[in-house]
C-alpha cells in the first residue's frame, strides 16, 4: 500500500468506449505525488507537441493531490489539466469542493481521458466500478438541471457531479468546469476540452475515507482539529470566513488596485454599491465550505430575491463582471455570476472579454451593426448580462467573443489588440500589477497565462511585523520587500514562493490554507504529509516537488514554441493608470526585463530562451524531459 493514495489511475479511451485501471508505484508517486506534478508528467509523456487542443489528440487529466480528502482544513483540491484551447500552452485549473475527496474515496487518484466519444457521454464512477453512459439527454441543459438529472438517473442524491455546461459543449475557449455547482476549474478553457471530447460530466460516489489510506490517521485528525480551532484565532483565516474573498473589493479600491473599465482605471466611483457590506445585506444567505475545511470561505446568495442554486460570486467575479465592466449594480453582478455558472463560463475571462468588447465599442471598433443593436458600453449592466448568454451560446457577436480577447482582437483589427488584456491568450484576473510587482511577474511568467495564484501577493511580505511575513521565515524569507520593486532579493523570494504555491497544487492544498497567504505553518504542512505517508519528508523535498512541477509545465510550453518573448505583460499594464491612489503609475518595463533575466538565472533557465537547462532538469530528476526537448 502507498499511504495517502489509492495508487490507481483510471484511464478512459472515449473513442473506443473502454477503460482500464493503472497501478502506480511508490517511487513514481513520491516524485510526482498527484495534482499538477502527476498531470504534467502524463501530458508531457503521452501527448505529442502541437496537437489541436480541441481535437481528440488532446489528453485530459483530472488529478487529486496526495492530501486531497485528508481531514485537514483546505486539503480539498484537484487539478484539471490538458493543452489549453485559450493559450495553446500547458493548461491547468484547480478547484476545491467535495468532488476530489469523493474520487479518492471511490478509489482513484486520477483520471486520464483520451480520444473523443462519437456520442455525448458521462462517466459514472462508483467505488471502483466504472461506466460510460450516454449523455445526449443532458446536452444543452444548464448545470443545475444536468446535476439533478444525473442524480435522479443514478438514484442517489449524494453523488458528486463534475461537469461542463452549454459553454463547454459549444467550445467557448474559456468554458470552465464545475463541481456541486459551487466550485470551479474556471480557467484555461478546460471545459471546452471536455466538450470537444463529448464528455459532459464525471459523476462519482465513494466510501473509503482518507483515514483508511493514511499512515497515522490519529495524527492527521489531531492536526485537523488544531487547525480547525485556530481559524478563529488567526486574522487571515478568520477574515476569509467572515467576508470571504468579496471582502477584497473595498481595500483594493482604496489602494487604487481595483481593476476598472478593462484595466484603464484602478478605482471605481460606485464601489459603495458593491462592497462587502452591500453584498452581505443584499445577497448573502449563508456561509459554506469545501470538504472538511473549517475556514468556510464560500458564500451562498440570493439572486432576484430567490435562493440561488449556485454559489455566490467570489471577489474575482464581482470584479470582472462589476467595476471591470463599469457595472456598479450588485444584483446585476450576482445575476451575471449565476449565468456564468449555469452555462459554465470562466467568470474572469467572460468579464474581461465583455469589458474588451465594451472598450472596442466605445472606440468605434465595434458598432451597433456588430452587436445587433446593443449599446455595448461600459456600465450597461443589461448588455453585460446579454453578452454572457450570447457568448455561452455563441449567438451573434457572442460567437466572436467566445474566442477570447486575443483571437477576437485579431479579427477586429485596428487598435483592438491594445484593449485585449491578456498574457499568452489568457485574460488578466482582478489584481492590479501596477500596485504589486511580483503579481505582475507572476502574470508574465506563469505557464498558463495570466494567473494571480503564482506567488503570495507582495503586500503579504512587505512588513517584518506582519503575521504572513513571520510565517515565511522557515522558507528563508527574512527581509521584507517593498511592493513596488523587482529587486534581486524580491526575485529570490519569488522563486521560493512559487515553489510553495506549486507544491500546494501538487499535494492538494488550497491557496487559502498554508502560509504566507493564510494560517497553516510550513511545519504543519510537513506534519500533514508525514502523517499521511511514511516518507519523513522535509521542507526541501516538498519545495523541490513544487519546482519539478513548474519545470515540467515549462518544458511543455517550450515544446509548443513558447519562449522569453511570451513572458510579458499587456501594453496597457506598462502604461499609466488613469485614476485612484496609483494614478500615473505604470509597470516599469526596463526593470521588468532585467528582473526577468535575474529570475531565469535563479531558476536555472536559459536567459535567452527562458527554457529550463538540462542541468536544471537533471537536478530535478527530469533528465527525461531534457531528452524530450532535445528531440523537438
Amino acid at each position, binding site marked *: 500500500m502507498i499511504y495517502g493514495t489509492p495508487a490507481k489511475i483510471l484511464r478512459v479511451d472515449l473513442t473506443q468506449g473502454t477503460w482500464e485501471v493503472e497501478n502506480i508505484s511508490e517511487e513514481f508517486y513520491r516524485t510526482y505525488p498527484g495534482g499538477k506534478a502527476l498531470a504534467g508528467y502524463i501530458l508531457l509523456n503521452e501527448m505529442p507537441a502541437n496537437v489541436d487542443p480541441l481535437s481528440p489528440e488532446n489528453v485530459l487529466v483530472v488529478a487529486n493531490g496526495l492530501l486531497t480528502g485528508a481531514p485537514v482544513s483546505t486539503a480539498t483540491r484537484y487539478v484539471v489539466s490538458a493543452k489549453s484551447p485559450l493559450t495553446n500552452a500547458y493548461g491547468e485549473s484547480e478547484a476545491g469542493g467535495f468532488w476530489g475527496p469523493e474520487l479518492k474515496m471511490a478509489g482513484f487518484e486520477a483520471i486520464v481521458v483520451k480520444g473523443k466519444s462519437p456520442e455525448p457521454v458521462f462517466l459514472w464512477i462508483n467505488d471502483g466500478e466504472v461506466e460510460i453512459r450516454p449523455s445526449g439527454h443532458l446536452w444543452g441543459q444548464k448545470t443545475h438541471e444536468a446535476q439533478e438529472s444525473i442524480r435522479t438517473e443514478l438514484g442517489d442524491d449524494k453523488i458528486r457531479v463534475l461537469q461542463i455546461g452549454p459553454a463547454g459543449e459549444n467550445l467557448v475557449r474559456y468554458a470552465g468546469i464545475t463541481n456541486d455547482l459551487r466550485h470551479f476549474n474556471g480557467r484555461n478553457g478546460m471545459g471546452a476540452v471536455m466538450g470537444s471530447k463529448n464528455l459532459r460530466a464525471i459523476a462519482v460516489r465513494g466510501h473509503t475515507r482518507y483515514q483508511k489510506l493514511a499512515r497515522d490517521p490519529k495524527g492527521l485528525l489531531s492536526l485537523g482539529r488544531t487547525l480547525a480551532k485556530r481559524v478563529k484565532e488567526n*486574522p487571515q483565516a478568520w*477574515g476569509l470566513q*467572515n467576508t470571504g474573498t468579496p471582502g477584497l473589493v473595498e481595500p483594493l479600491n*482604496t489602494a487604487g488596485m481595483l481593476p476598472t473599465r478593462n484595466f484603464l482605471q484602478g478605482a471605481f466611483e460606485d464601489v459603495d454599491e458593491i462592497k462587502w457590506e452591500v453584498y452581505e445585506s443584499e445577497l448573502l444567505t449563508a456561509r459554506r465550505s469545501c470538504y472538511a475545511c473549517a475556514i468556510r470561505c464560500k458564500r451562498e446568495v440570493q439572486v432576484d430575491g430567490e435562493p440561488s442554486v449556485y454559489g455566490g460570486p467570489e471577489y*474575482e467575479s464581482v470584479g470582472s463582471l462589476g467595476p471591470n465592466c463599469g457595472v456598479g449594480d450588485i444584483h446585476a453582478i450576482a445575476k451575471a455570476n449565476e449565468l456564468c455558472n449555469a452555462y459554465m463560463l470562466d467568470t474572469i475571462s467572460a468579464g474581461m472579454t465583455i469589458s474588451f468588447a465594451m472598450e472596442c465599442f466605445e472606440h468605434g471598433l465595434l458598432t451597433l451593426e456588430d452587436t445587433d443593436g446593443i449599446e455595448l458600453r461600459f456600465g450597461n449592466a443589461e448588455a453585460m448580462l446579454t453578452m454572457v448568454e450570447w457568448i455561452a451560446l455563441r449567438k451573434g457577436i457572442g460567437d466572436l467573443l467566445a474566442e477570447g480577447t486575443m483571437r477576437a482582437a485579431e479579427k477586429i483589427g485596428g487598435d483592438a489588440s491594445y484593449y485585449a488584456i491578456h498574457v499568452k491568450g489568457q485574460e488578466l484576473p482582478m489584481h492590479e500589477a501596477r500596485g504589486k510587482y511580483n503579481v505582475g511577474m507572476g502574470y508574465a511568467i506563469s505557464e498558463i497565462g495570466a494567473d494571480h495564484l503564482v506567488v503570495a501577493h507582495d503586500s503579504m511580505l512587505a512588513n517584518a511585523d*506582519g503575521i504572513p511575513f513571520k510565517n515565511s521565515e522557515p522558507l528563508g524569507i527574512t527581509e521584507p520587500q517593498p511592493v513596488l520593486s523587482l529587486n534581486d532579493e524580491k526575485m529570490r523570494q519569488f522563486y521560493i514562493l512559487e515553489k510553495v504555491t506549486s507544491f500546494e497544487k501538487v499535494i492538494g492544498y488550497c*491557496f487559502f490554507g498554508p502560509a504566507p497567504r493564510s494560517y497553516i505553518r510550513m511545519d504543519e504542512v510537513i506534519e500533514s504529509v508525514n502523517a499521511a505517508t511514511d516518507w519523513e519528508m522535509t521542507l526541501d523535498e516538498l519545495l523541490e516537488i513544487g519546482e519539478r512541477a513548474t519545470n515540467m509545465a515549462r518544458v511543455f510550453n517550450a515544446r509548443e514554441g513558447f519562449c522569453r518573448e511570451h513572458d510579458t505583460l499587456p501594453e496597457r499594464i506598462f502604461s499609466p493608470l488613469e485614476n485612484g491612489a496609483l494614478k500615473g503609475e505604470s509597470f516599469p518595463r526596463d526593470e521588468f526585463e532585467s528582473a526577468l533575466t535575474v529570475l531565469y538565472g535563479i531558476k536555472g533557465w536559459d536567459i535567452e530562451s527562458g527554457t529550463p537547462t538540462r542541468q536544471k532538469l537533471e537536478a530535478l530528476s527530469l533528465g527525461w524531459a531534457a531528452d524530450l526537448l532535445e528531440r523537438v
Partner: protein
Amino acid sequence: MKIYLGAHLNFYHPEKKSWLNVEIQQPVALAEILESAGIPLGEIHMVVVNNEIEEMSEVMISPQDEVKIFPPVGGG
C-alpha cells in the same frame, strides 16, 4: 470619532465590528490609538485619512478626520 477597520482588521475589535469608537479631544498619533485598542501595527498595510493614503508613522488624527485602516490583502 470612528475608525474603519477594513477587511479582516475587525478581527481585533472586541465585538468583531468594523467601526472602532475612539474618544479624542485633540490631535493624537494614530499609532498610539491603535496600540491602546489592541490592534497590532504589524497587521496594518494601509492608512487612509480623509481619502488620502498616509504613512502610519506620521499620522496624527483629529476628531473630525475620517480614518480607515486596512491589512495586506491579496489573492483569491
